[in-house]
C-alpha cells in the first residue's frame, strides 16, 4: 500500500500499516500488527478471525477508543473523509475534540452484548435523543420525532411506546434492534458492527441481519462487520479480511476468500466450519476433517448403536419454575420450562436436543442430572425410576450421568488445580482413592482427552478455552458415566477448536460406548454429531426423529423455520428468506393457565411430529 495522502473517490476509510500495542517496553503486546485495509462506500467489509486475533481492536482504533482502553497506536494511519470537518483526516492523530464530532455521528458502533450496551436506568428514547441532540444540534422535540422514526426503521412494533420503555422491558433481539436504531439515528457513513448477533438466537439473528442489510441499501452506509461466524460473514460481506494473531492473513472479495481461499490458515478455518446440508444422505455422525491431522489413520469407526435397551428413558417429564410476587409472596406465575417431554437414549447414541433460548432444553438436561426437581414424570436409568427413590439412593445415580457446561471459564473452580477438579467426582463415588492412585487415574484421563499429564498441577487460568473444555470433559469421564449431557459444550469455542472438541467427544463415544444428550442451538454442529434429533419449542418437543428425518424431511413449521434461519456458507449468494416477524412468546404463564400439550403423531418409523401449531401465536411460522 502506498502512503498516499488523498483517498480515491469511492474509498471512505483507509487503514494503513496500523500497529496498535498494549503495554510498554518488552512487555508490550501488539494487538494489531502492520494492518492495512480499505473500506469502500456502501460496501460491507467483514473482519473474521478467532478470538484474540485482534479483529475488534482495529475497529476500536477507527473510533479512537484505543487510548481509553490503555493501549496506543504505535504507527500507521487511518484516513477518513469527514463531512462534518470538511476534510480528510487521520483518525490516529485527530484531536479528541474533533474526534467527538465523528464518533457516534459519522462512525457509529453496535456491540455484541445488547444486554449491557444500553444504560439500564434511562429509557430507550432518551438514549437515542441524547445522541441526536448532541450531534445534530436539533431540539428535544425534533430529536424525539427522529428517534421514533429510527425505531420504526428497525421494525420495532409500537415505536411510540418503545421510546418510553426501559431496556429490561425488551427482549435481547429487541434491544439489539434498539441499539441499531441508536447507531443509525445520525445516519452515519460507517457502521461498525462487532459480533452484533453472536448473543442472539438464529431466527432472531436472521431478522437482525436482514435489517442491517436493508438499512445499508437505503442509506448507503458502509459497514465493518466483525464476526467469527463464517456463515454470517458469507451472507453479509462484500469483502473479507481474515486476521490471525494480530496480522492480516488474506483480503479480497467474499467470493474469492471464502470460495477459493489462497492462504493455508483460511483454508483450515473454513474446513472446520460445519456446513448445514453437508451430511445429506448419510445416517451416522461424521468426524470433522482437520487439516494437518490425517483423517483416515486412526479415525475410529463411528460405533453402531446398540438398540436393545435404552440407557435412559425420559417419560412425560414436566419441570416448572415458580415465580413469586405480591405482598404475601405467593406463587403468581410459573415458567413452563419443560412440559411432558419424553425420549430415550441408547448406549453409544447421541440425541441432540435443539431449540432457541428459553425453549427449556437446558432444563431437561438439568432435571436428568437432578439439579432441578421435576413437577411430574419419570427418568428411568436402565429401567429404574430415579425420582421415585429416596433421596440418599438417588445421589448414586449422579454417577450414571455427567454434565458438561457451556462456559469452560466458569465451570472450573479457579482456586483448584485441574487435577483436583478432575479427581473430585471420582472420590465422591469411591472410584479411586486419593494420593498416588488418584493422581495416576487423573493423568490417564488427561491424556485420554488430549492433554499432557504434566499439566495436572496447573490452575484453570493457565489453559485456553478449548483446553479447559477438555478438562471439563475429563472431569465428566472421571466417574465412568454411561450418559454425558453436553449443554452447549462447544458453543463458546472458536470453530477450529470446536471441531477438535467435537471430534474428541465422538472418539470417546466410540471407545467407551457413551450415550450423549447434546443440548445446543447450533444446527450445523447437530448435523455432524447426532444420531437422532429432538426439537424443542416453548418447553415441548415439537419434532423428534433420526437426523436424516429431521434435516432432510422436516415436518413441523418451527423445525423448518429453524433450519432456514441458519446462515449458509455460500459466498456470493445471499439467502432469499423471509425474515421472522414478531417475537417468540414467553413460557411464563399465570397460575392455572396451563399450556396446551401438543400431541405427537408418528409420520414415519421413529419420526414424531407435534400436531397443530397452537401456542405459537405471536410468531408467524409457515
Amino acid at each position, binding site marked *: 500500500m502506498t502512503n498516499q495522502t488523498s483517498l480515491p473517490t469511492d474509498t471512505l476509510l483507509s487503514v494503513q500499516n496500523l500497529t496498535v500495542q498494549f503495554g510498554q517496553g518488552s512487555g508490550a503486546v501488539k494487538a494489531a500488527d502492520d494492518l492495512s485495509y480499505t473500506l469502500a462506500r456502501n460496501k460491507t467489509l467483514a473482519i473474521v478471525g478467532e478470538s484474540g486475533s485482534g479483529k475488534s481492536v482495529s475497529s476500536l482504533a477507527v473510533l479512537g477508543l484505543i487510548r481509553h482502553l490503555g493501549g496506543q497506536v504505535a504507527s500507521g494511519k487511518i484516513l477518513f473523509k469527514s463531512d462534518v470537518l470538511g476534510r480528510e483526516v487521520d483518525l490516529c492523530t485527530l484531536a479528541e475534540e474533533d474526534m467527538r464530532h465523528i464518533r457516534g455521528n459519522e462512525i457509529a458502533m453496535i456491540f455484541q452484548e445488547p444486554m449491557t450496551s444500553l444504560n439500564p436506568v434511562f429509557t430507550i428514547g432518551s438514549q437515542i435523543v441524547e445522541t441526536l441532540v448532541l450531534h445534530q444540534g436539533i431540539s428535544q422535540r425534533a430529536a424525539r420525532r427522529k428517534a421514533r422514526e429510527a425505531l420504526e426503521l428497525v421494525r420495532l412494533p409500537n415505536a411510540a411506546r418503545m421510546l418510553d420503555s426501559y431496556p429490561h422491558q425488551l427482549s435481547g433481539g429487541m434491544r439489539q434492534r434498539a441499539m441499531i436504531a441508536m447507531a443509525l439515528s445520525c445516519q452515519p457513513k460507517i457502521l461498525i458492527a462487532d459480533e452484533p448477533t453472536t448473543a442472539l438466537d438464529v431466527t432472531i439473528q436472521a431478522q437482525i441481519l436482514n435489517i442491517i442489510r436493508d438499512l445499508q441499501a437505503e442509506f448507503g452506509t458502509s459497514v465493518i462487520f466483525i464476526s467469527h461466524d463464517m456463515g454470517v460473514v458469507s451472507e453479509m460481506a462484500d469483502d473479507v479480511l481474515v486476521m490471525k494473531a494480530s496480522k492480516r492473513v488474506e483480503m479480497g472479495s467474499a467470493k474469492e476468500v471464502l470460495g477459493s481461499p489462497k492462504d493455508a490458515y483460511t483454508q483450515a478455518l473454513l474446513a472446520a466450519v460445519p456446513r448445514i446440508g453437508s451430511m445429506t444422505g448419510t445416517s451416522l455422525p461424521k468426524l470433522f476433517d482437520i487439516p494437518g491431522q490425517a483423517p483416515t489413520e486412526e479415525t475410529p469407526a463411528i460405533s453402531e448403536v446398540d438398540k436393545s435397551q435404552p440407557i435412559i428413558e425420559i417419560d412425560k417429564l414436566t419441570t416448572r419454575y415458580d415465580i413469586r410476587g405480591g405482598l404475601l409472596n405467593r406463587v403468581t406465575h410459573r415458567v413452563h420450562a419443560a412440559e411432558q417431554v419424553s425420549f430415550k437414549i441408547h448406549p453409544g447414541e447421541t440425541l441432540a436436543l435443539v431449540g432457541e433460548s428459553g425453549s427449556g432444553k437446558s432444563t431437561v438436561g438439568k432435571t436428568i442430572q437432578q439439579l432441578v426437581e421435576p413437577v411430574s414424570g419419570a427418568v428411568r436409568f436402565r429401567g429404574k425410576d430415579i425420582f421415585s427413590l429416596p433421596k440418599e439412593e438417588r445421589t448414586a445415580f*449422579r454417577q450414571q450421568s455427567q454434565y458438561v457446561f457451556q462456559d469452560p471459564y466458569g465451570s472450573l473452580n*479457579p482456586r483448584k488445580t485441574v487435577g483436583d477438579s478432575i479427581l473430585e467426582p471420582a472420590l465422591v463415588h469411591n472410584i479411586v482413592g486419593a494420593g498416588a492412585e488418584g493422581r495416576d487415574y487423573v493423568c490417564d484421563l488427561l491424556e485420554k482427552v488430549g492433554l499432557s499429564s504434566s499439566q495436572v498441577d496447573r*490452575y484453570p487460568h493457565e489453559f485456553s478455552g478449548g483446553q479447559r473444555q477438555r478438562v471439563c470433559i475429563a472431569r465428566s469421564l472421571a466417574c465412568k458415566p454411561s450418559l454425558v449431557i453436553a449443554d452447549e459444550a462447544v458453543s463458546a469455542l472458536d470453530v477450529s477448536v470446536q471441531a477438535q472438541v467435537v471430534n474428541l467427544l465422538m472418539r470417546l463415544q466410540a471407545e467407551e460406548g457413551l450415550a450423549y444428550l447434546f443440548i445446543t442451538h447450533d444446527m450445523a454442529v447437530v448435523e455432524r454429531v447426532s444420531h437422532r434429533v429432538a426439537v424443542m419449542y416453548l418447553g415441548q418437543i415439537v419434532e423428534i426423529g433420526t437426523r436424516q428425518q429431521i434435516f432432510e424431511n422436516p415436518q413441523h413449521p418451527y423445525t423448518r423455520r429453524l433450519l432456514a434461519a441458519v446462515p449458509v456458507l455460500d459466498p456470493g449468494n445471499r439467502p432469499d428468506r423471509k425474515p421472522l416477524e414478531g417475537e417468540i412468546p414467553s413460557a411464563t404463564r399465570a397460575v392455572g393457565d396451563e399450556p396446551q400439550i401438543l400431541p405427537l403423531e408418528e409420520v414415519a418409523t421413529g419420526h414424531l411430529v407435534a400436531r397443530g401449531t397452537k401456542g405459537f401465536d405471536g410468531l408467524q411460522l409457515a
Partner: protein
Amino acid sequence: MTDQTQNVKPRVSFRRKYHRFFKFEFIAGIVLTGILGALVLAATWLFPEGGRTVDLMARLTPPFLSWEHPLGTDPLGRDILERVILGGRISFTVGILSAAGAVVLGTVIGLLAGYYRGLWDTLIMRFADIQLALPFILLAITVIAIVGPGTDRIIVLMIVSQWVQYARLVRSSVLSLREREFVQAARSYGLRDRKIIFGHILPNALGPLIILLTLNVANNILLESSLTFLGLGADPQTPTWGGMLSEGRNYIQTAWWVTVFPGVTIMLTVLGLNLLGDWLRDELDPLGRTSR
C-alpha cells in the same frame, strides 16, 4: 504445550522452592508482627511488676534522655516502654480474639444462609439488620452494667456485634458464587453440600473477607480503648494501648510522647497485619500468584 518433564524431578534452589515467602509483604509483615508479638509474649517475664511502678519524681520525663526511661514517662512517672509492651497483652488479645471469633461465626452463618436461602436466611438477615442498627456503645454499657466489667466480656460483646458484617459480606459473595457453573458442576457429580460450601465456595469468597478482618483487628484495638476509657473494660491500672492514648490526651501539648508511642505501636501492629493479610490474599488466589 508439550512437556516431557514427566518423572524428572528438577532441582529447585532454596529461593525458588520458597519463592512465595520471598515477597515484600510477607517479610515486612512477619518482621513487624513477629517482633511485637514476641515482646508481648515475653512481657510478663520482662516486667513482673506489671507497669504499675509509680515514680512521681520522674513524671513526664521526655524520651531518649536516659536508659532508665528510654521512651519517657507518663504523668504518674510510669515507664512508657514498659507500659507499651505490657499493654499489648490486652490489646493484642482483644483485637485478635474478637476479630477471629467474629470472622468464624459470621462466615459460617453467612455461608449457610447464602447457600440454603429460605426461611432461616430471611430470619438471620432481618436479625442482622436489627443488630446493625443497634449502637455498640449502648449495647456495651447495658450489658456491662448487668454482668460487670472485664476483658473477656468485651471480647464476647465484640464478637456478638461484629459477626454481622462478616455474615453479610460472605452471604453476598455466596449468592453469586452458588450460581456459578463450577458449583453447579460440583452438585451435578454429587458432591456433599458441606464440601461444596467449604471446598468450593469459601476459598472463592476469602479475598474481601481477609481485608475486612485486618481492618477489624485495628478497629477493635481502638474500640477496646474507648470502652476502657468509659470504665467498661480492664481495670484502669492495667496498661492497654487504648487506655494510654486516652490518658495522654490531656498532655498532648506538653508531653507528646505519652500518646505518640502507644499510637505508633498500634499503627505498626495494624500495618504488619495488613501486610500479612495482603500477602495471604494474593497467595490464596492462583491468578495473582506467578506460577513457577
